[in-house]
């Protein structure tokens, strides 16, 4: 059996699955329930001077048959008294000494930071997470993402915390910034022990067409919220990878954003995260999803021969390059498996209208399985992505792999297009129909 336990910047937990600081970690009751269900750690709902919340607070992006594919909130930090939270942290740690309990914090002055760090460490927290990410409400008061967007301020606050903290300090980053590595580097310079990312992305999740207001509306008015859930995973993955590859950061990473099963978690780990945090998926399905995550991760690790999470961390990083280092001679083209094809012709219309006019339709006698016009196919993948049948369109390699040449190589050799209309450009070799062909009647390429 692989060993799932993790030592994250000095904080130990029985597995890499932590709850992110959010409603699921709002109380001792919830965190106990989560640990009992199998979660390895929890970052407590952000503590600070208690706030007042509005109702309603959430909005969602539903996509076709999928609810909450994206999720948006305008909630603030904990609205419960600090002393209740401290008492509950203590109680949880008593029952679950081997699980990770991290306190998420957000206050303003140096004195406030000093006080609250001492308070939570005294209560037994295994570490603190500094919330520099909240992109709504708190930032208007100079906290949350207002700090995360100012590397110098961020660095200063981290150093204040380090003045008193005895436990690891994690800095939670906001994605609402152009270059995520800047605040990450600042965190390191301030003395942080780890970073976690991403917090939510500033968003408007939709507009009420009848009442002319965005969701969620509070008495007819609304405000921007923070976006999370499955929809944000690709953005989070990229930011995690950027931090993992940046020499100046060189800190353990806790990956967050759209994680809902073992697969998502492995993706974050392969891109450099040491553990992961989950919020929306638990808000959607409850703590029970951990029952799928743990055995899934175990089976994957056993199949691949990994004994410890550490062996997997960053495994994919060496293969992620800049564009100029990709092989320009690698050629794939699409291939349709006629036996699997259900004849929806989505590949045809996608390539015809949205790509390279490289798919044809058979003429006459009820035949509907499309075919690839190999000379036109640029290997873009679009058809294989729109095809609704598993494994029906595959991309098949056509070059023999003998000659590798990148843009970088070509630049060094001076073999790149440098003027308009340059023969060296890629597009000059493609066959494209004449503009007026578009107006010839649609059925003409069928019988």
């Amino acid at each position, binding site marked *: 059996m692989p060993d799932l336990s993790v030592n994250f910047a000095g904080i130990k937990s029985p597995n890499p699955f932590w709850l992110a600081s959010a409603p699921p970690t709002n109380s001792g009751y919830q965190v106990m329930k989560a640990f009992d269900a199998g979660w390895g750690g929890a970052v407590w709902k952000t503590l600070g001077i208690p706030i007042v919340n509005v109702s309603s607070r959430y909005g969602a992006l539903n996509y076709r048959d999928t609810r909450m594919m994206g999720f948006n909130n305008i909630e603030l930090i904990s609205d419960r008294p600090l002393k209740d939270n401290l008492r509950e942290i203590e109680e949880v740690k008593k029952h679950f000494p081997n699980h990770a309990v991290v306190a998420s914090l957000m206050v303003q002055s140096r004195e406030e930071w000093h006080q609250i760090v001492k308070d939570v460490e005294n209560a037994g927290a295994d570490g603190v997470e500094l919330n520099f990410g909240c992109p709504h409400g708190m930032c208007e008061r100079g906290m949350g993402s207002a700090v995360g967007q100012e590397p110098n301020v961020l660095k200063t606050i981290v150093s204040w915390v380090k003045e008193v903290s005895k436990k690891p300090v994690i800095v939670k980053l906001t994605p609402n910034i152009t270059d995520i590595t800047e605040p990450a580097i600042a965190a390191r310079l301030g003395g942080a022990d780890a970073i976690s990312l991403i917090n939510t992305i500033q968003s408007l999740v939709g507009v009420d067409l009848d009442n002319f207001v965005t969701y969620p509306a509070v008495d007819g008015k609304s405000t921007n919220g923070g976006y999370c859930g499955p929809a944000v995973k690709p953005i989070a993955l990229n930011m995690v990878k950027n931090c993992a590859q940046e020499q100046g950061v060189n800190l353990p990473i806790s990956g967050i954003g759209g994680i809902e099963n073992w697969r998502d978690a492995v993706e974050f780990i392969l891109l450099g995260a040491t553990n992961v945090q989950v919020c929306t998926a638990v808000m959607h399905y409850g703590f029970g999803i951990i029952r799928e995550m743990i055995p899934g991760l175990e089976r994957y690790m056993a199949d691949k021969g990994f004994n410890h999470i550490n062996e997997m961390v960053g495994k994919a990083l060496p293969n992620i390059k800049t564009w100029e280092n990709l092989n320009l001679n690698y050629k794939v083209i699409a291939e349709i498996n006629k036996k699997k094809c*259900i004849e*929806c012709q989505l590949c*045809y219309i996608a390539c015809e209208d949205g790509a390279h006019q490289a798919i044809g339709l058979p003429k006459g006698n009820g035949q509907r399985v499309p075919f690839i016009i190999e000379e036109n196919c640029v290997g873009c993948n679009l058809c294989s992505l729109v095809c609704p049948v598993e494994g029906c369109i595959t991309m098949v390699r056509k070059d023999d792999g003998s000659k590798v040449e990148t843009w970088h190589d070509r630049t060094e050799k001076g073999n790149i297009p440098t003027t308009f209309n340059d023969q060296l450009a890629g597009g000059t070799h493609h066959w494209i129909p004449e503009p007026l062909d578009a107006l010839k009647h649609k059925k003409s390429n069928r019988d």
Partner: protein
Amino acid sequence: MSEFQRPSSKKEFDRNFSQIKPFLNETQAYYESSRCLFCYDAPCIQACPTGIDIPLFIRQIHSGNTIGAAKTIYDANYLGHACGQVCPTEVLCEGACVYNHQHIKPIEIGRLQSFATTQAIIQNKKLFITGKPNGKKVAVIGAGPAGISCACELRMLGYEVDIFEAKEKPSGLTLYGVAPYKITNKEALDEIKYLQEQFEFSVKYRSPIVSKRDIEKLEIKYDAIFIGIGLGETSEIKISGENLRNCVGATEFIEKLRLTQHRVHVGNKVIVLGGGNTAMDAASESARMGADKVILAYRRSKEEMKAYDFEYELAKKVGVKSLFNVAPVKIIGKTKVESIKFIRTRTRRGKIEAIKGTEFVENCDMVIKATGQAKHVDFFSHIPGLELDDSGRIRVNKMFQTKNKKYFAAGDAANGGKEVVNAAAEGKAAARGIHRFIIGK
């Protein structure tokens, strides 16, 4: 078998005949519409005789534009609601849905269709503006699907339209023929009312056109005449005992069932003669009316039945038993039906042969003949120059024009008996034919 109690009230009748395609609720419609792939040149459209843009209306439902979806449906098919309910979708659109290729349940196109049309009908949304009056008049004989569809399209083209209907209600066999578990009387009539309010054609009920004189009067008043009178009564099978009490024609039985519901008489042991869809319906309906035993008796083998598989399955599911390769020799009884004498048959080179010495008697107290409907041959004889084909169907060209150029015909009367959707498609096409004939467009 008696899985159904004899219904003694409208409520019990409705329970026994509960809809096999019940309305989708909003959540069902949302999820079902989300599954449609929006195929290119979609096979479902090609399989629909009226060519409804199915992926489009499904996408409209999904994006919350249900009335727009209804418009898409009605643009192609004026009986969009009835069709969603009664079409044999298994062999039409849903049978062509690409999901079938991967053994995934096809999209429930029929139910999505009725979901949209119901909203338009309930809200009485006006979707059409009729054409500028062109001063021409057309008479439509028969307010069935063919006649109604023709009338709607003629109104769009600016004609004045009068429909002459023999019965007291519109809808034709949608109301008098189709099984009650496919569409309720109210739904069928509500759709026609909805159409009539928008298209403003007139319908003269209890106005059969039967005599030469009736025809001549129409000819004077109208620029063209459309024949949409469907088929006639159940044909005779010409064996002795056919006129005994409790021996009835299927269409007559079903008409009574639709109109008087739980009050219709059904025997304890019913034999249904025939192997088409009407036979399946009559058998299913007898079973749902609480008959103890219902037997389908067909002259040929199971494989040769003309009925759709799903209709046969539906009958079997309610307990109907079958006898194949048996021909009725005579119906026995004093005043009422008591039994049928059958002889076993086999099929040789497409022809049925009776097998000597294989006679047997099957007891029953009711016989339903589902042995085909006669054509209105008498009526046709009044129209000069009208030509019929060998099986008594009115001969029409591509414009649905008969040999007498002033007359057009479509639906069951011209196609010999198909489905509501075919009548709707043809009736509309005939209106375009009439327009070509009168205006030259």
